[in-house]
């Protein structure tokens, strides 16, 4: 806001309104590009630091050597442990951030992220059953979790569907109800588990990057490469839908079809991310509003939210690994961060007089 008023003040009396609009639009788009660049650089720095720093520190030259395939000191730690871990963290964060902002924008509610409205609860229930009842391999658990997340989202959509189409409020509430049911399935399965299995399952349920390997990274990479461009292409229509379903329809957006497509792409991103690292709590929830806040009211926050999600997971995982004495799963840290942020978000929206 200040940027605009600063610009308006020195304007010559003869300057036309059009010039002012053009100039301020250019200014906003510069800010947009700048924010995205800064976030991208921050992600790269965090990624690089999580390769070099840790219990043992290596130089950047060592890391480059390992990436180029030379046999240098620390090639096991860097090549087999840190690279898959950091890549998984960054990609999962990206996926969660993108999916979260998509849902929040589409449902016009900062609390309506996929993790809060229960999209990932299907993945959790499937994973717990896979680990504890069927004793599956980690890769099979991932596959099962992906399928289950998609199935849950479809069930939520269909249950929220009535003759008038899908109302956003109904979608949110049905999601909450269904996830309450699925989490009782989780606690039933946990109730019969041995103590050791229980800890494995609980680690999975909190979301962590310990199981990251090159093999498990592959499906996530493929999903990212395929789905992210589609989602970014859809953000234009998403921006129109932000104005309300009727306005969007008047602008020529096929609302119901776009909504289904957006849900499918965002849920698929959630599903592959959850399969790779478990439902890391609140990454999807936190990233969107923070990205929107950094960006200001200039266009879609979806990409910025993805970048912020990647940054959040990388940093939180590093802190959870080395800074707290005990090694915590990353999801415990992000979940605990989410609580104060929730309060902040609500207090701020109250001050603004807006409704959530």
């Amino acid at each position: 806001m200040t940027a605009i008023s600063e610009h308006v003040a020195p304007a010559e009396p003869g300057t036309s309104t059009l010039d002012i609009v053009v100039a301020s639009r250019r200014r906003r788009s510069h800010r947009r590009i700048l924010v995205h660049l800064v976030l991208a650089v921050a992600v790269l720095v965090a990624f690089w630091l999580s390769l070099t720093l840790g219990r043992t520190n290596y130089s950047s030259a060592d890391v480059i050597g390992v990436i180029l395939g030379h046999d240098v000191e620390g090639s096991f730690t860097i090549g087999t442990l840190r690279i898959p871990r950091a890549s998984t963290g960054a990609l999962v964060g990206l996926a969660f951030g993108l999916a979260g902002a998509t849902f929040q924008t589409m449902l016009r509610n900062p609390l309506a992220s996929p993790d809060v409205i229960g999209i990932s609860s299907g993945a959790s229930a499937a994973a717990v059953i896979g680990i504890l009842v069927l004793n599956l391999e980690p890769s099979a658990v991932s596959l099962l979790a992906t399928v289950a997340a998609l199935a849950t989202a479809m069930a939520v959509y269909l249950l929220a569907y009535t003759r008038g189409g899908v109302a956003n409020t109904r979608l949110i509430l049905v999601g909450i109800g269904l996830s309450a049911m699925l989490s009782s399935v989780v606690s039933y399965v946990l109730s019969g588990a041995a103590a050791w299995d229980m800890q494995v399952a609980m680690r999975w349920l909190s979301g962590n990057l310990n199981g990251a390997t090159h093999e498990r990274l592959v499906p996530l990479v493929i999903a990212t490469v395929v789905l992210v461009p589609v989602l970014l292409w859809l953000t234009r229509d998403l921006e129109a839908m932000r104005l309300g379903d009727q306005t969007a329809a008047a602008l020529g957006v096929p609302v119901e079809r776009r909504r289904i497509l957006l849900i499918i792409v965002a849920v698929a991103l959630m599903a592959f991310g959850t399969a790779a690292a478990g439902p890391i709590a609140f990454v999807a929830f936190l990233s969107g509003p923070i990205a929107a806040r950094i960006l200001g009211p200039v266009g879609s926050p979806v990409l910025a939210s993805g970048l912020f999600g990647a940054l959040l997971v990388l940093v939180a995982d590093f802190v959870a690994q080395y800074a707290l004495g005990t090694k915590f799963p990353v999801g415990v840290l992000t979940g605990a961060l989410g609580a104060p942020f929730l309060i902040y978000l609500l207090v701020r929206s109250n001050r603004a007089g807006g409704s959530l």
Partner: protein
Amino acid sequence: MTLAVNTRPGVEHRRAVSARLLTTVGLLVVLALVCVASVTFGVLDVGWNDLVAGVMGGQETTAQAAVVKRMPRTVLAVLIGAALGVAGAVMQGVTRNPLADPEIFGVNAGASLAVVTGIVFLGLSSQSGYIWFAMVGAAAASLFVYSVGSLGRGGATPLKLALAGAATAVALSSLVSAILLPNVQDMETFRSWSIGGVGGATWDKIALIAPFLLVGLLISWSSSRALNSLALGDELAAGLGEHVNRSRLLASLGGVILCGAATAIAGPIGFVGLVVPHVVRLLVGVDHRWLIPLSAIGGAILLTAADVVGRLVGGTEEIQVGIITSIVGAPFFIWIVRRQKVREL
């Protein structure tokens, strides 16, 4: 959801009262049947003679011993069910919200976090300690969710409350894992509490929570007039001479005591508080003076029946009652959501 007060005068009124009395008697009969079923069925089914002898205190046969063991369990299920049913009716009345339920609103998660904190940091291990911790946790969580959900334009809409509750529950359960993961030995204690159900019932436990439940029930029932006024909206209620905030606080206190004490003994049990008041409202209307006591009976029926079903379906590894109520209750929740007009949500 409009909870308008029914004020039909004269003959109509008397007829309504007798219809309600009839409903009450009917529900009590159903409750008695469910209780008999609860003592009778299980891994070992009991015949009529053994049942009578067992209730009288006989221990000669295995069947009679089974009856003796199942009696406290049945009584506990009735008490917990009644408490949760009333807590749900009070919550729905106080928030004027058809979706109010301790599970949806994150109240159970608050109780869980408080109990975990007690177990891990203060070495809590007694049932009476659980009660106080669970109650404080439940109160804190409901206060938080309610104030968060009523921020902003439009006050506490069902949607805002449900979202605030869901987000709070996620945050609180992350904190639960954060506390539990480094403490494997406490995980076991917590697990046995969190899936408690009514299986571990003893007369001692019942004696422990009975006073809390009694106080909670009395507070709730005595608030029923106030809840009727609140249903008309805050301004109208104030116009009728109601101290809006004081009544709301008192009624919530009753609900929180009931919900916290029930959760402390039986672990988090969802959806009883959601389903029961809705069904009872269909039977006797929206007057809280009837709604609250009948929700107690209805809750007792639902929880006892769910416990019996869990025992029959699960065989030797019985399914905890909270899981059965969630599996029945969540579709009911979705049904209510689908039935409401969107603008009312």
